[in-house]
């Protein structure tokens, strides 16, 4: 069906939604597993999981992704049996099967865009595992008369109950809960908030089984609702919940007590106050607020459709385009300012001044626009945390380790693209922390630690950067072991000569691992070098602090956005480059005599610190056609705690630039984050400070 009219846009929508559904499914499955450990299942959660699989199945079917559809169909099947109480979670490691199916589903959804490689075998195996769990629980004996019939619900109500709602009703009865009908009447204009309030209040003390809209006495201005509700509370307690007399609660009975005449009271459209309902309904409808003028105009209609959904899903490509346009506007503004200055110089001073003023206003508005577009791209880091917490729970369960997770600063905002790109490296660091950091519960208690290990993930903004820290209270990194390994690998000749800090850097070397037994979790080929490279790819840095026996802390420093930045424009050996201003710490004017050479490397003594220097012409292996100037500048760049001095011939000024990617083929070049247009038809390279620092440190060893 993919070709039959489903537009490209719709397919994109599908992918975005499928990813969302899969993600939520995963986090809810983890919640379910946690609850299952406690023995109690939350029906609302279970239903939500079911709905996830259900809607994915329908969607994938419509868009022609039959493998996703088939797998989610089977998941839906078993989840349906689960939510309808036909099977129980305790059987045959069902949770494990569900996790496995979810994993496969995730990878199927992810690979939709990449390839269409059929994974029929994998799916078939997974489906058969699912189906092997479909062994029904012993059916509880059913009463001669269905308890539902004893409730005497009118057809109007039972006719609109889904199979699931019926099951929930029965389940509530079987648990000996009272079933109530909560009848409310709201004005059509405000019913949404009011109904939500009532539902929320009810959910604090029981389960909302169904919400049936109906018409009451004031059909033109009001809408009524009958909410079927199960709770252990008695009728009086429930009525007291609402100080509001437009809400009428009727007890329909419970499994053991049968109401006298609930049936008759419900069969009328408006519930009367007879039998066991609280005696307020007589005034209920009268007390309802007076009707406001209700002639709905077209304007109203337009407004309501507008306010319907308050969020818009936007392809990030569109935002990039917008950002490019903003960038071009900024350039256009520069040339207008230039014209204004020329006009003033060439005698049109009055007009020149006016034009300058106009250009300044334009500049302010452009800054606002730029900030606005930037903010749209920002999403809270917390979105990442949800995914993390799910995986952490899963891994720690698999490893038999007890891990408590704490998150701080989930509302710190980062560019959406950066968030996407650091998800994998962050995950790897966390896996490492569970796998190698946190000890087993037995070991922990034997060394006097709490059985439960802690992983603390915190994020905060620091200037123009966002810092994400992953801290565990495990056994830390054994630096002696790292040093020994480095010696064994021939990376160093003398252990005593390397500092702890230098030793930590070895961890980021390709193929460097201190663990001998490769576990299932981490240490499966992807090493910390990949982590560092991935973080460096978004101009970030990673640092480690560790204390033996007490734990480690990984500190990831990232730029807030990659889109538009202020840059320092520099020239060196006849070429012009841009350096993001956020990484520039200071500028120094020096002469050759200020530079010293240590171990054949140029360094600079700067306030009791030795600053390594880098010459752009040798970094990029370009030849210098111009003479080196006697006086030159050193741009001190820093990311996290690391510093590097870049030797340049001249500083050309500051400018807003839009970094444009150089594409896949240039990705492997370290030290360049992209290209930018200077607005005068000159295209220059944008230097990546973090990449250059990493590269210099790496070469340094």
């Amino acid at each position, binding site marked *: *069906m993919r070709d039959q009219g489903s537009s490209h846009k719709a397919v994109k929508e599908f992918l975005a939604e499928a990813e969302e559904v899969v993600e939520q499914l995963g986090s809810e499955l983890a919640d379910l597993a946690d609850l299952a450990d406690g023995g109690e299942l939350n029906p609302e959660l279970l239903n939500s999981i079911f709905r996830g699989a259900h*809607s994915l199945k329908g969607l994938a079917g419509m868009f022609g992704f039959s493998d996703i559809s088939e797998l989610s169909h089977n998941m839906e099947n078993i989840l349906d049996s689960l939510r309808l109480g036909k099977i129980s979670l305790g059987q045959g490691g069902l949770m494990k099967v569900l996790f496995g199916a979810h994993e496969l589903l995730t990878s199927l959804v992810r690979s939709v865009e990449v390839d269409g490689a059929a994974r029929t075998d994998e799916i078939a195996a997974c489906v058969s595992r699912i189906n092997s769990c479909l062994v029904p629980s012993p059916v509880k004996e059913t009463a001669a008369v269905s308890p539902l019939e004893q409730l005497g619900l009118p057809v109007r109500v039972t*006719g609109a109950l*889904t*199979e699931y709602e019926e099951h929930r009703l029965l389940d509530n009865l079987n648990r000996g809960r009272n079933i109530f009908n909560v009848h409310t009447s709201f004005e059509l204009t405000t019913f949404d908030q009011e109904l939500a309030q009532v539902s929320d209040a009810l959910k604090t003390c029981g389960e909302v089984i169904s919400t*049936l809209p109906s018409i009451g006495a004031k059909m033109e201005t009001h809408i009524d609702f009958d909410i079927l509700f199960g709770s252990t509370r008695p009728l009086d307690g429930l009525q007291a919940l609402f100080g509001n007399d437009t809400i009428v609660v009727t007890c329909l009975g419970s499994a053991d007590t049968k109401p006298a005449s609930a049936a008759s009271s419900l069969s009328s459209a408006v519930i009367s106050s007879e039998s066991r309902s609280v005696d307020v309904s007589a005034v209920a409808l009268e007390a309802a607020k007076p009707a406001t003028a209700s002639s*709905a105009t077209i304007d109203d209609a337009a407004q309501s*459709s507008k306010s319907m959904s308050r969020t818009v899903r936007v392809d990030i490509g569109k935002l990039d385009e917008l950002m490019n346009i903003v960038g071009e506007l900024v350039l256009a503004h520069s040339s207008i300012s230039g014209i204004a200055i020329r006009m003033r110089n060439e005698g049109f001073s009055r007009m020149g001044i006016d034009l300058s003023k106009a250009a300044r206003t334009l500049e302010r508005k452009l800054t606002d626009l730029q900030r606005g577009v930037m903010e749209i791209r920002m999403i809270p880091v917390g979105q990442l945390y949800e995914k993390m917490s799910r995986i952490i729970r899963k891994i720690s369960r698999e490893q038999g380790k007890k891990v408590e997770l704490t998150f701080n600063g989930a509302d710190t905002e980062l560019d959406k693209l950066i968030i996407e790109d650091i998800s994998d490296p962050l995950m790897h660091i966390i896996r490492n922390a569970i796998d190698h950091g946190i000890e087993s519960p037995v070991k922990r208690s034997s060394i006097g630690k709490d059985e439960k290990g802690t992983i603390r993930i915190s994020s905060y903004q620091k200037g123009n950067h966002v810092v994400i820290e992953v801290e565990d209270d495990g056994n830390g990194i054994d630096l002696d072991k790292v040093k020994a390994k480095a010696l064994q690998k021939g990376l160093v000749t003398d252990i005593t000569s390397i500092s702890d800090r230098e030793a930590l850097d070895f961890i980021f070397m390709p193929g460097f691992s201190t663990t001998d037994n490769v576990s299932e979790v981490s240490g499966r080929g992807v090493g910390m070098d990949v982590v560092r490279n991935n973080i460096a790819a978004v101009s970030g840095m990673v640092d480690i602090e560790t204390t033996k026996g007490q734990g480690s802390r990984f500190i990831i420093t990232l730029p807030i956005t990659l889109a538009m930045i202020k840059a320092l424009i520099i020239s060196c050996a006849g070429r012009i480059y841009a350096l993001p201003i956020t990484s520039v710490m200071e500028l120094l004017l020096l002469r050759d005599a200020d530079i010293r050479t240590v171990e054949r490397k140029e360094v600079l003594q700067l306030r009791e610190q030795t600053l390594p220097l880098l010459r752009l012409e040798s970094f990029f292996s370009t030849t210098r056609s111009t003479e080196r100037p006697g006086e030159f500048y050193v741009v001190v760049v820093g990311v996290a705690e690391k510093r590097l001095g870049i030797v340049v011939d001249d500083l050309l000024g500051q400018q807003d630039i839009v970094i444009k990617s150089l594409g896949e083929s240039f990705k492997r070049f370290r030290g360049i984050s992209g290209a930018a247009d200077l607005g005068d038809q000159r295209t220059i390279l944008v230097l990546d400070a973090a990449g250059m620092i990493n590269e210099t440190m790496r070469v340094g060893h």
Partner: protein
Amino acid sequence: MSAKKTILIADDSPAMRALLVSTIEMLGDYRIVEASSGFEALRLLPRVKVDLILTDINMPDINGLELISYLRSNSNYLSIPVFIISTEGSQKDLEKGRLLGANEYLIKPFAPARLQALISSYLCGSP
């Protein structure tokens, strides 16, 4: 007031709504109003004159069956044709939808052409 016919789509899946919208747009120039739940559909109904409703069954807040039950008990909406668009699954739910007064039901995956044909026949072919 325009003479365009209005179709209300109630589905909690944005992608499904997008697909339905593009299917309808290919058919003709209809006015389309989207609701992401039965609840939102209820909010929209008094404000927009609707000529046809497409609804999912499984939705948060107020589900499709509850929505249909309301539509069929309210004289203002009694005659609006309702199509259930749902995933195969609970036959009981679909059967109930029919009993409640849904005019048609389409089970995903269905051919867009089928939906287009049904819309044309219920709305007499003209947008």
